[in-house]
C-alpha cells in the first residue's frame, strides 16, 4: 500500500461511520485522524498538519458548520469536505446554524458515500493547483 503522505482529519459523531471512512482512506495510503466529537477535534487540532478535513454536519453541541468556522480561523488555508446524511442541508442550515453561510458550501457529499465517490472527491481536492476551498 503506497503512502501518499497526505493527512486527513475526519470528525463524525457516528463512531462506525468515522471508522469506515478512516479504513477506506487508509487503504489508499492516507494518514487519518478520526474524532467522534467536535470538542476533542478542536482540542487535538494541529494547524498546518492536515491536507483536508472531512466534517459531519449534524453533531451534538458543536455542529459541523461551527466546527469548520473555528478550525478555519486557526488554519485559514484548510480544505474542507462536508459530509451529511441529512436530506436537506438547507433546512438544517437555517434552523441550526447561524455561523455558516450556505453559499460558501462548495464541497458537500451526501452519506452514504461509496469508496469510489469518496476517493474521487478526496483526490480532486488534493490537486495542489486548485485552491478552491470555501
Amino acid at each position: 500500500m503506497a503512502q501518499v503522505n497526505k493527512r486527513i482529519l475526519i470528525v463524525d459523531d457516528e463512531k462506525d461511520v468515522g471508522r469506515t471512512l478512516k479504513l477506506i482512506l487508509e487503504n489508499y495510503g492516507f494518514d487519518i485522524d478520526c474524532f467522534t466529537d467536535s470538542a476533542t477535534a478542536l482540542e487535538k487540532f494541529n494547524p498546518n498538519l492536515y491536507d483536508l478535513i472531512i466534517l459531519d454536519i449534524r453533531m451534538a453541541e458543536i455542529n459541523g458548520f461551527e466546527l469548520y468556522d473555528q478550525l478555519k480561523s486557526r488554519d485559514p488555508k484548510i480544505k474542507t469536505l462536508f459530509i451529511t446524511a441529512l436530506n436537506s442541508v438547507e433546512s438544517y442550515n437555517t434552523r441550526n446554524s447561524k455561523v455558516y453561510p450556505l453559499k460558501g458550501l462548495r464541497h458537500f457529499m451526501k452519506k452514504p458515500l461509496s469508496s469510489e465517490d469518496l476517493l474521487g472527491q478526496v483526490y480532486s481536492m488534493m490537486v495542489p493547483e486548485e485552491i478552491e476551498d470555501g
Partner: protein
Amino acid sequence: MNPILALLHRAKSRVILKITLLVIVEIGLICGSFFILTYYQSQGSSIGKSINAAGKNRYLTSNSLFQTEKFLDGSSNILTLENGINNLEANIGALKYGGAISGANIKSVPPDFSGYLNNVIRDFSAYKALIQDKIIDRSQGSQVGTPETVLVLRQDLEATASNLVRSSDILVTALGSYADNNSQNLIMLQIFLAILNIGILVLILYLVTRILRPISVLTQATREIKKGNLSYHVEHKSDDELGELTDSFNSMINSIRAYIEEQRRLSDELKTANQEIQQRERMKDEFINVAAHEMRTPVQPILGLSELLKSKKRGNEVAVTDGEEDELLDMIISNAKRLLLLEENILDVSRLENKLLKLNKEECDLVKIISIAIQDAKNQIDKNMVELAAYKPTELNTLLVYADRSKLIQVVSNLLNNAIKVTKAGSIWIYLEKDDNKAIVSVKDTGPGIDPSVEAKLFLKFVTHSSSGTGLGLFISKSIVEAHGGKIWAFNNTSGKGATFAFTLPLLE
C-alpha cells in the same frame, strides 16, 4: 287597515297617549278661556242694554209729564196720556223681567241692583197712581178740577216725576260703575288667561321634550357605536315604547358585542389551529429530514465496510487484518439491526397513531427484562469512559408484571440508549424499586441534562435535541408505558448533573 282600528292601535301607543293627553289639556284650556271671556263679555253687553233702558226712563218720564201737561191744557187726549204711561211701564217691566224694548233684547237687571230698581218701581207706582187717580179716573167726561186744584196737581206731578227721574238716574249710575268694574276685571282676566295659556304651553313643550328625549339619547348612542364604542350603554328611563326601544337597543348592542367577541374568539382559535398545523408541518418536514439521516447513517458502514471486505476477498491489498474482519462484520450486522430498529419504530408510531399497536401481554419479570436491556446496552458503551450499573433491593429477586415482554425491553433499551447517547463519559445507573402495588424503573445519567427548549415536549413525537435520533423513542416509550397502565416522566437531577427518566408499571397481583 281600517282607519278607526289604526287610530285605536295608535292610541295604545303610550307616547302618543301622553302627547294626546297634553294636547287635550291645552285644547280644554283654550276653550275654557274662550267661554269665560265670552261669558264676561256677554255680561258686560247686557249691563249696557240695561243702562240704556234705565236711561230711557228719564226720557219716557219727561214725555209722559209733557203729555199729561198737554192733556191738562186740553190740547191732548187721554189715549196719548195713557200711551205715555204705558211706554214708561213697559220700559221698567223690561228692566225687572227682561224682554224686547225698541228692538233690543234686554235681560233683567242683576239681583244686586234690585234695591235701586225697586226705588224706581216705587216712584213710578206713585207717579202712575197720581195720574190714574187724579186725572184718568176723574176725567170721564168732565173737567179734572178747578184751576187751583189743577195747579196743585201739576206741582205734585212734577215732584213725583222728578223722584222717578232721580231714582232712575241712581240706577243708571250704579249700573254704569258696575259696568266699569266689569270691563276692568275683563282686562285682568284676559291678561291672566293669556299668561296661564303661555305657561301651560311651555309646560307641555317641556313634557313633550322629556317624552322624546330618549330619541336624542339613542341618536347619540348610535354615533358612539358607529365610532366602535361597543361598550356604550343607554340608561332606561321611561316605561313607554321609547323605554322598550332603549331596552331593545341595549340588547341589540349586547348581541352585536357578543357576536363580535365570538368572531374574535373563533378567529383566534383558527389562528392557533393554523399555527399548530404549521408547527406540525414543520415537525413533519424535520422528521422526514431526520428519518432520512437516521436511515442513511447506518448504511454508510454497511456499504463502506462491505466494499472493503469484498475488495479484500478478491485478493486486493487491504489494510484490514484477518482479526479485524470479524469486528467489521459485527459492525455491519449491528448497523443493519439499527436500520431495522428504526423501521420498527416508524411502524410503531404509525400503529400508535392508528391505534393498531397490539400488546401480547403475559406474566413477565422486570428483573430479567432489565438485565436483558443492560446486556444489549453494554455492547454500545466504551467501558473505559462510561460506567453502567443496576441497583435493586437485595430481597427483590423477581418483580412480576403483566405486560408485553418485548415492548418493555424496547422501553428500557430506549431509555438506556438515550442515556448512553448523551453520556460520553460518566455514569448510567438503572434502579428498580417496588412501591405498594407498582414497580418504578428509573434510568439516571450524568450527561448534560434535559435542554430547557425541549423539556416541555420531551415525550411528543419528532422532538429531539441530539445529533442522532428521530425523536420517536420517547414518544413510543410513553405510549407503551401508558398502554400498560403506567406513567413515564423525566427530570434533571437536583444533585450533580444529568437527567433521570423514570416509569411505573402496575404489579401483577
